C-alpha cells in the first residue's frame, strides 16, 4: 500500500512539474486531488486494513495530498509570474502615443520665468499700450528736443501726427521706458514693477536686427536706496535664465532717462570669458542697460527727486533667448514658423 502511495506521489509531482498553463494545472489538480483521483481510490480501499495501517496510511495519504496542494500552489504562482497580458509580441522601440502638442512662444516662456522671479521679490507686472505719444516716449524721459531717436529714421510715427509734437505726435513705442512714468502717475511711489513688452524701431533688418523686438524692464522707486541694489535684480534675471550664477560687470553707460547710467555685461558663455568670435574677443557680452532714474523723469511722474530715487534695468528678451538657445536669426521670433516654434517645450 505504502509503495503504491509513494508511486502516486512521485508520478503526481512529476505531472505537476510538467504543467505549462493554468488550464493544464486545473486539469492536473482535478486528477491528483479530485474525488476521482488515484489518491481517493487508495483511501477508499483502506477499509480492509488494520487500524494501525489505516492510521499510518491515512496520514501518509493526507501528507501526499498536502504536498500536491502546496506544489500546485507554487506551480500556479510560477505560471502567473511568467504570464503576460499580451497575447502577441510587443516592439518596445515603437514610439509612444503623442500627447497634444502646443507650446508658448519662447519669448513668452522667458517672460513668464522672469515674471515668476520678480513676483517673488514683490514686483508687480505692468504693461503699457503699443501706441504712445512723443510726450510719453521722449519728453517725459528727458530726451533732448533734437535727440536723433525722435526722427522718423528711428521711430515709427503714426500717419497724420508725424509733424506735430508732444501728446499729439503718436508713435509705436520705441522702448518700454515710457510705461514707467504711466505706472508711477497712476500708482505713485514707492513702487517696484516690471513691464515686459514689444518695442518698435525703424531699422534695416538682418539676422541680428529687428524692427519689432521684445524687452523686459524693471523699475524700483523708493527713498534712500543706492543704485548698487540694481545688481541684485540683474543677478535675479540671469540666474533665472541660465539656472546658475553668471559673472557680470557693470560699466559706464549713458541714457537720457538715467543719471548715472550703466551697461551690464555678462561673461561670454560660449568661451567662458576667454574671448571668442561671439563676444568680439573680449570675453564679455553686453546684456542690459540700466541706471538711476533721472530726476527729470521723476518730475514727469509728479515725484519729488529730493525724496525719491530708483533704478531701472532693461533686458532684450530676444537677445536673451538667442543666447540661451543659440538661435542665430532674430527674425525667427516673428516668423510664426512651426518648424522653429515646435523646438520649444
Amino acid at each position, binding site marked *: 500500500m505504502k509503495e503504491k502511495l509513494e508511486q502516486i506521489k512521485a508520478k503526481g509531482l512529476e505531472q505537476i512539474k510538467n504543467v505549462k498553463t493554468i488550464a493544464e494545472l486545473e486539469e492536473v489538480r482535478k486528477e491528483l486531488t479530485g474525488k476521482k483521483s488515484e489518491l481517493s481510490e487508495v483511501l477508499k480501499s483502506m477499509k480492509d486494513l488494520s487500524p494501525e495501517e489505516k492510521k499510518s496510511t491515512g496520514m501518509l495519504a493526507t501528507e501526499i495530498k498536502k504536498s500536491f496542494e502546496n506544489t500546485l500552489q507554487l506551480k500556479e504562482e510560477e505560471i502567473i509570474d511568467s504570464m503576460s497580458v499580451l497575447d502577441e509580441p510587443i516592439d518596445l522601440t515603437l514610439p509612444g502615443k503623442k500627447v*497634444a*502638442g*502646443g*507650446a*508658448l*512662444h519662447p*519669448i*513668452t516662456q522667458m517672460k513668464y520665468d522672469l*515674471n515668476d522671479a520678480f513676483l517673488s521679490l*514683490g514686483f*508687480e*507686472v505692468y504693461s*503699457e*499700450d*503699443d*501706441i504712445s*505719444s512723443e510726450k*510719453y516716449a521722449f519728453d517725459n524721459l528727458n530726451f*533732448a528736443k*533734437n535727440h536723433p531717436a525722435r526722427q*522718423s529714421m528711428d521711430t*515709427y*510715427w*503714426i*500717419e*497724420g501726427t*508725424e509733424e506735430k509734437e508732444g*501728446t499729439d505726435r503718436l508713435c*509705436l513705442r520705441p522702448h518700454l521706458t515710457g510705461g514707467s512714468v*504711466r505706472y508711477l*502717475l*497712476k500708482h505713485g511711489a514707492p513702487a517696484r514693477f516690471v513691464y515686459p513688452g*514689444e518695442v518698435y524701431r*525703424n531699422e534695416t533688418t538682418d539676422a541680428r536686427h529687428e*524692427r*519689432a523686438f521684445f524687452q523686459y524692464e524693471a523699475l524700483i522707486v523708493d527713498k534712500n*536706496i*543706492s*543704485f548698487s*541694489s540694481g*545688481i*541684485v535684480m540683474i*543677478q535675479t534675471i540671469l540666474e533665472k535664465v541660465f539656472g546658475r550664477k553668471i559673472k557680470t*560687470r*557693470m*560699466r*559706464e553707460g*549713458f541714457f537720457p532717462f538715467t*543719471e*548715472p*547710467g*550703466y551697461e551690464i555685461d555678462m561673461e561670454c558663455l560660449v568661451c567662458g570669458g576667454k574671448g571668442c568670435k561671439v563676444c568680439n574677443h573680449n570675453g564679455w557680452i553686453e546684456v542690459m542697460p540700466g541706471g*538711476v532714474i533721472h*530726476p527729470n523723469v521723476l518730475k514727469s511722474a509728479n515725484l519729488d527727486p529730493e525724496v525719491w530715487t530708483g533704478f531701472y534695468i532693461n533686458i532684450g528678451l530676444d537677445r536673451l533667448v538667442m543666447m540661451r538657445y543659440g538661435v542665430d536669426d532674430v527674425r525667427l521670433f*516673428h516668423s*510664426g*514658423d*512651426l518648424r522653429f*516654434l*515646435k523646438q520649444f517645450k
Partner: protein
Amino acid sequence: MKVSLNLIRKYIDLPEGLTDEQIAYDMTLRTVEVDEVENIKQKFHDIVVGKILEVKEHPNADRLRICNVDIGEAEPVQIVCGGSNLYEGEYVVVSKPGAEVVWHGQGEPVKVSKTKMRGEVSCGMICAASEVYLGDFYPDENETEIIDLKGFECKPGDNVADLFGMTDTVLEIDNKSLSNRPDLWGHYGIARELSAIYDVPLKELQEFNIERDLPKYNVEIKDTEKCNRYIAVEIDGIDNRKSPMWMQSLLSKIGQRPINAIVDITNYVMFAVGQPLHAFDKTHVSGEKIIVRNAENGEELLLLDNNTIKLTTDDLVICDERDAMGLAGIRGGKKDSILPDTKGIVLEVANFSADTIRQTGKRFAEKTDAAIRYEKGLDTQRVKEGADLALRLIKEIFPESRIIKYTDVYPNETKKNKIKVSEEFLDTRLGKKIPQEKIKQILTSLGYELSYKNGEYDITVPTWRSTGDVTIKDDVMGDIARILSFDSFEAKPITITFEHSVKQNDVLLERRIKEYLAERCGFYEIFTYPWIEEKYIKSAGIDMEKSIKLATPPAPDLAYLRSSLIPAMLEAISKNLRYYDEFKLFDYEEVYKKGDYRPSSNDEILPIQNNYLTGCIVGKNAKEIFYEAKGVIENMARYCHMEEIKLEKIEKPSWADINAYLNITKNDETIGTVGLLSVKVMTETKIKRTNVAIFEINCDKFVPYASRTNEYEKLPGLPLVEKDLSILANEEITWKQIEESIKSKVKEVEFVDEYRGNQIPEGKKSITLKVKILNEGTTMTSEQINERINSILKVLDKKCGAKLREE
C-alpha cells in the same frame, strides 16, 4: 574714434606696469567702451630694412628682377621682385617669410612664405607701401614702385615700424559711447579721464604768446547766437610741404591720411584737443574780411566735391566780402582749398552753436569730424587751446612763418555750471561712504573745483562739461560712481516691506489663457508684426478705414497697423501649410482702432488699443475642426477662471463661411467670433486642400475671477442609470432643441454622435444621446427605468418629432 596711447602719454605719465589691455578695460568700465586694442607694431613683425646688393635680370620673365638683398642676417638672401625702381645700394622694405602683408594693398593680410617665381627662389618680398600698411606715407606711389628708404637713417635688419613711428597701441573707442561727452572727442580729454582713473597728474596745455600789437584781422559775426567765438589768424610764409614723420605717423595710426603740413596740423589739433579748425588760403578771402552770417534763402554754395547745395536761413555760412566760402563748422567750399601755390593762410578757430551744426548737418549723409564735435556742444575756452596748439605747431614746422594779423571775437563765453551736493546725498545714493579725500581727488582730476562746508560740497563744473553734460548733482554723483567703477560697489540687498501680496488678476488671466491654449488645447503661440501686408487685410475683408497708418512704414504695402489679428494669422497659416497639413496656432496681441483713449492723462488722446486673441485649427475635416474650435471657446471660461462667455449666431464676420460661424458674447455684447474660414478667403490667400477653423476675441472684455470658483456637490448615494438612445430626427431639429426638450426629465444629457448615411432616410439624421437618470431613493427596477425612458422618448417625439431608431 581711435586713440593713440603715445599721444596720451604726452599728456600724462601712465602708471608703470600697466598693460594696454588693462588700460582699455579700466576705460571701458569707467568712461567709454573700448572696442579694440590694436598693437600697431605687431603688424610689422618680420618686416625689415633690406639693402639691395645686386640686381639681375630674371631669365624667364621680362618684368621681374632677381635681387640679392642684405637683410641684416649672416648671408644675403635672394628675392624676386617686379618693382620698377630697383637699383643696387637701394634701401628697401623686405617682408621675410612669416610676415603678413596685404597683396597689392587690397584684402586681408596674407602670410609671406619662401617660394619660387618662374623657377627662381624668392626668400620674401620687397614691398610697396600699400602692401605693408604704409600707403598713407606714399600717397603718390605708382603701382609698380616699391618703397625707397632713401633719406632714412637705417641699417639692414632694422624693423620698419620704428622708421615710421608705427610703435604704438591704438584704442578703438565706440563712438556711440562718446555721444554725451563733447570733452572726450580729443586725446587730451581721454588723458584727463585716465588721470582721474589712475590718480596721476594731467599736464597743462602750453599757451602760445601772440605779439601784443598785432593788427586785427577783420572778422564780423552777424549772428552772434550761432557763433560764440571766432579766432582768425593770418599767417605768411606757408607752403605745401609735408608734415614731419611723427605727425604723419600719428595721423595715419588714428585713421587720418596725411596730406600736407597745414591740413595735417588742423587735423592733429582736432584729434589732440577736440577743437576743429580750418585754414583758408589767404588769397581766396576777398577783401581780407571774414563774415559769419545766416545764409540767404536759396543761396548756393559750391562744395569741394563740385556739388552745389542750396542753403536756407537756418544755415550758417563763413563768407568773404563777396560770397560764401564754407558751411560753418561742417565743411568747406571749393573756394577755400589749400593749393600747391598757397603762400599764406587765414586760420579759423571757432565755436558754433551745437543746434545750428546739427540742423545743417542733416543735409549730408555723412558727418564730418568737425560737425560731429560741434554738434555735441563744445566749450568756447577750447578755441584758444586749439589756436595755441596750432600756432605752436606751425611755428615748429614752418620756422620762417610769420603771424601778420590776429583777432579773437568772443560774443558768448561758456559759463561754468555751479552745483551744490550734500554729503548725505552722496552717501545714500552711492550706498557707501566715500572719504572726502577720494571725492576731492576724483572731481579735481576731472577738472571740477570744489569746496566743502557743513556737509555740503560747492562744486564748479569745468567749462568742457558745462555745455549740457553736467547740470545737476546726480551728474556729479554719477562721475564719482563711475570713476570708482560701478563694479566696485557691492550689491545691496533689496529690502521688501510686505504691505500686501501682489495679485493682479488681469495679468494672471492672460497667462491662464495662453497656458490653456498651449498646454491643454495643443496650440502653438506665434507673434506677428503690428504692420500688416495689405493683401491679407483685403482678403480678410477688414475695413481699412478704421485702421491706423504709419507715416514711414517698413515697406509701402506695410503701412496699415492691425485692427484685427486675422490677417496676420492668415499669413502664418498659408506659410506653414508648406510644411504641415494640420496644426493649431494662436496669437495674443494688441490691435488698434481710431478712437479716443486716454490711459494716463487727459491731454493725451491715443487710438483705442485692445488685447485680442486669435487662434486657428487647420485640418481636413471642416466640421471636426469647427467643433474643436467651439470646444476651445466653450471651455475657456471654466479652465481660465473667468466669467462665463456665450456662443450664439448673431452676425457673420467678413472672413467666415456663410453657414459655420458663431459669435462670442459676454453680457449680451459681442466680443468675438468663431467660425470656418470662407471659401473666398481661402482662395485669395492660397490656403488649399484643407480647412481652417478660426476664432478671434477681445480679451479685454474678459472678467477674471479673483479666486477659484469650484462648487462641491454631495456625491449621489446610488449610481446614475445611464442609457444611450439613438433617435431619428429631421435635419432642421438642432441639438439645442433636443437638449432643452428633455432637460427636466433627466439628471444629465450628453451628445454622443450624429450620423447620416445609407440607412437613414433623406432629410433626416440619426442622433445618439446619453441620458443619465438619478435613482430616487432606492434602486430602480427595470420596469421603472423603462417607464422613465419611455416618457423621455414621448417628449422627444412630441417636441422634436424624433423617434427611436429601429435597430
